Each structure stands twice: as structure tokens, then as C-alpha cells.
């Protein structure tokens, strides 16, 4: 599995170091920020695609960036799951970067180093095969995300960033506690070694609980979600897009990887995760139905989507239901693309209308048609209507729950679809209502360059439903033996 070709062996490390070094450059020479940022994002996308193709052809890649192999040293592992998420991060990120670069200098020069640090950190996270290494990448991602949250400078965003930072810090400390317990129980922290270690006692169970709770704090799993609505709703549109689409997936992936590759969790714990997921679906959807602001609706819908993905933990008990895991990952992918499209579209709407107060949207004279269209398309994927990536993900999840004979979870999935249709319809209705407009005159601005990226992303979300074969082929070995590094 360690490739003989040395260039290929260092590819994973380059995906981490490249963006980070570009971040240094963007920080030292702020005026070149956009150029460096776009270039590095595009290069990372190319690298991630190349890696994905390589893995598709010849199987997972395991490299050792430091010259010393685990357990003493650190290994990096890239399988289909990691590769898919790497491509997702780089792809969505490059799109958001394009939108930001096109929007002009309003974002400020700090967006670029923060985004590039986030990219490098996420890449490191997806490629990690060592628990302590995973901890450090979680920290990088957390700090960069806090920076993006506070970028808009408003008091609400600063408060939200502080709350997010505290929650993330608590999560990291709990995760570190788990790593400490694992090391004291097994004497090593590499995933491969931990998976085969036989000692399982109170220390290992405590480690599992600590790490899951810590990651739940970072992923905003209800009831540990309090920081998310304020953080995502008060950030600038590109920052919100990155936070909801990409940052959340990092800690969620970490939980998934630990669940599948390291620990052997009891079925009851899976059911608990599923119950938490169901709670998140209900809570997120209800709050989205009640939210006064458009951005809050989109933020709450992220909570609900995370809940939906959590159902896979409960459903996928045995191999027959393993397809549920593939559904969960596909949902992550589809959600990332659609949510980024949605937040960018909302940004365009707010820029055109001047506010994001849902009740007053019907009275707005300006109707930014292309942005609203992009929003609607993204909503199709988030609700899970065919043909969209969201539909494919939900379908696989449903298939898994039926195969496992767990009908209650199938009902929850159906309920999630109905609820998301409800709150999305609430928003779309405001777009189409014109009765409140004073004087009845409506201005429909035409296409602008800034509408291109949200629309492209929304179309991509639909495309994921049509061209699902490629990504699913990468995920084929999940979750069987192909997941353990």
C-alpha cells in the first residue's frame, strides 16, 4: 500500500503543506492574496482529483511523511472516503474563492490566509491516520474557522466567534482526553494499531465517549449545537458557506472514521446517536420554520442535515446495511455543494434587497431572480428531491435502513424530507409573493457575474444526483475492511 514511487508517496503531504505555505505568502503579501488564494485552491483541487483517480485505479495509499513509520512515527492514509472528501473540500472551496475574488476587496485581505489555512487543515484531517495528528488538524481547522466567523467585524459575529471558540476548545480538550486514555490503554495512537489492539476496558470506553462528545461539540450535534446558528448566520456569505459546507464535515468525518476504523462501538451507542440525530432533525427544522432571518433558516437547516447524517450511525449495524454509510457520505458531499450554493445565493439576495428579514422579503421591490433561482435549485438537493445529490444520499440511507429492518429510522428519514420541504417552501414562498410591494413595481435585475458561482454550485448539486456513479465507485469499500488504515 505504500507506493514505491517516491513522488506519489509525498503527494498527501503536499496537499497539506501546499495550502499552508500559500497561506503564509498571502499573509505576508496581502495585496497578492486573491491571486495566491485562487491559485493554491485550484492547484489543490487538481491534486485532490489526481489522488482520487489514483486511488480509484490502484486502491488506498498509505504514506509516511516523516521517514519513521507508525507506531513510533506518523502515517497518512488516503482511501476512497478521504479522497472524495478532499475533492469536495477543494472543489467547493475553489468555487467560494472564485466568488470572493470576484466580489472585490470587500472581504478584506485576511480572508485568503484564513481560507488557505482552513484548506490545509482540512486536508490534513482527511488524510490523518493517527489520533494525535487528528487532534492537531482539528485545532488548525477550529482556529481558521473562528477567524472566518469573526471576519465581518460586527458585534454579533465577534460574540458568535467567541462562543464557537469556547465550544470548539472544550471539544478539543475532550478529544485530547480521549487520545490520552487511548495511549495509556494501548500504548500507541495510530489507527491501525488501535484497531487491532485487544485490550478493551473502562479506559477505552471512556476514550470513546470523550472523543465522541468532543466531536459532537465541534459538529454542533443537538444539544451541543448552541454556537452554530449565531456563528453561521452572522458571518460574511463566503465565510458562512465555508463554515456550513466544509468545516462541519471535518469533525463529522473524524467521528465516522473513529467509529468505523478504530473503535468497536456497541449497538446501543449507535441507537443513541440515531436518537440524537432525530432530535437534531426535529429541532433544526422547527427552528428553521420559526426563524425570522433568511440566514438563520439556512443555518438551522445545517443542524437538521447533520442530524440526518447521524442516522447512519444507528442504521448501519451489519454489512447488509453498510450502504447506509455510503448514503451518509454522499449526503455530506451533496450538502456541502448545496449549502455553499445557498449561502452564496443568500449573500446575493441580501446585497440586492438590503436585509435578510424573511417577513419583509415579500415587500422588497428588488427581486434578484438568478440568486433566487440558485437558492431554489439548492433547496431541491437539500430537501432530497430527484434528481439531486441529496436524493441519492437519502435513497442509500433509506435502502440501508430497510435492509437492516429498522423501519423507525426510515420513518425519520421521510419525516426529515417533509420538514425540510416545509421550511424551504416557507422561504421560496416569500420569493414569489409580490402583494406586499408598495406601488406594485418590481425591479428584476438581470444576470451579473456574481451570480455565476452560486448557480454553478447549485447545478453541481443536481449533477451529483445524475452522475453519482463516479463518486460512489470511490466509496465502494466503505465501510468494510477497506476503511482501516
Amino acid at each position: 500500500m505504500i507506493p514505491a514511487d517516491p513522488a506519489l508517496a509525498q503527494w498527501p503531504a503536499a496537499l497539506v503543506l501546499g495550502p499552508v505555505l500559500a497561506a503564509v505568502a498571502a499573509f505576508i503579501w496581502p495585496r497578492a492574496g486573491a491571486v495566491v488564494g485562487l491559485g493554491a485552491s485550484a492547484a489543490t483541487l487538481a491534486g485532490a482529483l489526481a489522488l482520487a483517480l489514483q486511488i480509484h485505479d490502484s486502491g488506498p495509499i498509505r504514506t509516511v511523511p516523516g521517514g519513521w513509520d507508525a507506531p513510533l512515527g506518523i502515517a497518512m492514509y488516503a482511501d476512497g472516503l478521504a479522497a472524495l472528501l478532499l475533492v469536495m473540500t477543494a472543489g467547493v472551496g475553489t468555487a467560494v474563492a472564485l466568488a470572493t475574488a470576484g466580489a472585490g476587496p470587500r472581504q478584506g485581505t485576511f480572508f485568503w490566509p484564513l481560507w488557505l489555512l482552513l484548506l490545509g487543515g482540512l486536508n490534513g484531517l482527511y488524510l490523518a491516520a493517527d489520533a494525535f495528528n487528528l487532534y492537531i488538524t482539528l485545532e488548525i481547522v477550529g482556529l481558521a474557522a473562528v477567524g472566518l466567523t469573526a471576519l465581518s467585524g460586527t458585534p454579533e459575529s465577534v460574540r458568535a466567534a467567541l462562543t464557537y471558540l469556547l465550544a470548539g476548545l472544550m471539544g478539543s480538550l475532550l478529544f485530547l482526553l480521549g487520545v490520552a486514555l487511548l495511549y495509556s490503554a494501548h500504548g500507541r495512537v495510530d489507527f491501525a494499531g488501535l484497531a487491532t489492539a485487544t485490550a478493551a476496558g473502562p479506559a477505552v470506553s471512556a476514550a470513546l465517549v470523550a472523543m465522541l462528545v468532543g466531536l459532537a461539540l465541534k459538529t454542533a450535534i443537538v444539544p451541543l449545537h448552541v454556537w452554530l446558528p449565531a456563528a453561521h448566520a452572522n458571518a460574511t456569505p463566503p465565510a458562512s458557506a465555508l463554515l456550513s459546507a466544509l468545516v462541519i464535515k471535518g469533525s463529522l468525518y473524524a467521528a465516522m472514521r473513529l467509529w468505523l476504523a478504530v473503535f468497536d462501538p456497541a449497538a446501543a451507542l449507535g441507537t443513541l446517536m440515531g436518537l440524537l440525530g432525530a432530535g437534531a432533525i426535529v429541532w433544526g427544522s422547527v427552528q428553521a420554520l420559526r426563524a425570522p432571518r433568511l440566514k438563520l433558516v439556512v443555518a438551522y437547516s445545517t443542524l437538521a442535515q447533520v442530524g440526518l447524517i447521524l442516522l447512519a450511525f444507528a442504521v448501519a449495524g451489519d454489512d447488509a446495511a453498510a450502504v447506509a454509510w455510503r448514503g451518509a457520505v454522499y449526503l455530506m458531499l451533496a450538502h456541502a455543494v448545496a449549502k455553499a450554493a445557498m449561502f452564496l445565493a443568500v449573500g446575493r439576495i441580501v446585497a440586492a434587497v438590503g436585509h435578510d428579514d424573511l417577513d419583509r422579503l415579500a415587500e422588497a421591490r428588488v427581486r434578484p431572480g438568478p440568486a433566487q433561482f440558485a437558492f431554489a435549485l439548492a433547496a431541491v438537493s437539500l430537501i432530497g428531491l430527484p434528481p439531486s445529490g441529496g436524493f441519492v444520499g437519502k435513497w442509500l440511507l433509506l435502502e440501508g435502513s430497510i435492509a437492516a429492518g429498522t423501519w423507525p429510522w426510515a420513518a425519520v428519514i421521510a419525516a426529515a424530507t417533509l420538514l425540510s420541504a416545509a421550511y424551504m417552501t416557507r422561504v421560496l414562498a416569500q420569493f414569489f409573493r409580490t402583494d406586499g410591494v408598495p406601488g406594485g413595481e418590481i425591479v428584476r435585475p438581470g444576470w451579473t457575474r456574481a451570480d455565476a458561482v452560486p448557480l454553478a454550485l447549485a447545478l453541481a448539486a443536481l449533477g451529483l444526483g445524475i452522475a453519482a456513479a463516479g463518486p460512489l465507485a470511490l466509496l465502494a469499500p466503505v465501510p468494510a475492511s477497506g476503511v482501516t488504515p
Partner: protein
Amino acid sequence: MNAAWLAFDALLLAGILGVAWAAMAPGDAFRAIVMFMVMGLLVALAWVRLRAPDVALAEAAVGSGVTGALFLRTWHALPREAGRASEATAARPAAPRRLRLAAFGLAATLTGLLVAALASLDGTAPGLGDAVAARLAQSGVSNPVTAVLLNFRAYDTLLEVVVLLAAVVVVWSLDARPAPRPVPARGPIFLGFARLALPVTVLAAGYLLWLGAFAPGGAFQAGALLAAVGIVLLLGGLYRPGSGDRRRARLAFGLGLAGFAGAGALTLGLEGAMLRYPPAAAKTWILAIEAVLTLSIAATLAGLFLGERSAPARTGGERP
């Protein structure tokens, strides 16, 4: 087991717990911060008892020193006048009873779980100590912690430097309206102190760096000392930053990462794997990387403390 040492440990632990409780108590924030710093030093002492002198040095310098300085800087910037409530230090009434009960429940659960986990460990997992000892000769240094940080698990240390960089990027990205920074009274005592202590501290930092190869010490501890020198110079007005200094500071922040990555690229070319040092010259490589890291860490810690722009101190009403 020596009963006297056990008594000492018990006393030290009691002291740590007591001081820690005082450090988190509501009330005078200045007192709490000082208690926190004292706790850090006592904890460092405890870790020396546990045969972890490198970490004890780092806790004393970074965990207690730099963190305490950051706390004091923040405390200085917050309002202290009575009747001026602000979000950050609003004098709210003591937490409601239900919250305290819930908090106690959470805390007891955490401690209970930890105690149960620790009690269940019977030391059968040998850990990686033997593996490190077996390969220590090849690592180029004889301090095992330095060997782990800079050789065996160098990739982790690289990412740690990225964390430092991310922090300074975020701190510098926050608003340009700076909080006033404290200014020491520049009398003969301060100047005399600076004239004596600063050069000695620079020497001590260099010594710690060189020492790290074979005794407790290393880049992070040395970097913290150097950062202290930089902070005193800038706070005391002994060095006034010029116009190009902000760009130079950013360069310094990135220097550590660039140096580390550059070393990685070079070793990739020479040895075929990133950060696999040529065995004969491993010590030189490690020291060179650590030297660059020390400078960068010092700059980064100072940058975290001072921020990008610092306003002059508020006039009048200085705190004692």
C-alpha cells in the same frame, strides 16, 4: 516508596488544588490571574517530580508565563470602574442554584469517569518509551523528548507551528481598533532591569535551545524566553516599531513554517522521504530547524500578545 517524598507530593497537590480553586473564583480578577500563574509554577514543580522536566519548563514559560501575561493584558483592557457594566466582565449575580447543581453533576461525572479509567489501567501497555530508547542513537540527539518532537513525530510539530501561525493570523485579523496596552513606568528601576535582564535572557534562550539536544530544553521554551524579551522591549518603548516592521513581523511569523517545510523539501530530495534527516548529520539538521523555530515562535508569541497595532495607554486613572 519514600514516605517523605509522598508527603511532599501530597502537600504539593493540595497546594495546586487550592490555588487552582482560588484562580477560578469570582471576585478580584487580578488576584485570580496571579493565582493562575502560581498554579502553573506549582504544576511545573509537580511535573518535575514526575520526571518530565522539558514539559515542566514549557509549562512554566508558556503555560504560566505567556498565558498569564495574555490574561493580564486582557484584564488591563477591560473596564474596572464600578457601574460601567460591559459584556465581557458583567457583574452578574452568582449562578443560579440549578445551574450550580448541574455543573456539579457534570464535574463529578467527569472526575468519576477519569478516576475509574485511571484505576483500571494496570500498566500492561508498555507505551513507546522502549521504541524511542531503541532508536534514540539514530535520531541525532540524546534528549528523548526532542527526538520525538523533532525527528520521530516531526510532522506533528510542523502542524503545531501551523497552529501558532493560524492563531496570529486570526488575532491580527481582528479589528484595527486596538485595545490600549499597558505601559510600565519608565523610571531608573525599569531601565536598569532592562539593561541587565534582557541580554541575560537572550543568552539563556540561546543556551536552552542548544541544551535541548541532550538535556531538558528546546525550541519552544527558548522561544518563550525570547518572546518575553521582545514584549518588554516593545511595551517599555525601548524599541519603537518602524513602518516596515509589520511586514517584517509577518515574515518572522511565517519563517518557522517555511524553514520547517524547506527542510522537509531538502530531505525529500536527499533522503527520499520528507524530514528523514541524513543519519550522520541529524543533530545539525535538528538544531538548525530548532534555531529557526525559536526565532519564529518568539516573534509569534510576541505578536499574539501585542496585536498588530497597539494604541498608547489610556491617559489618567492608571491602575496601581
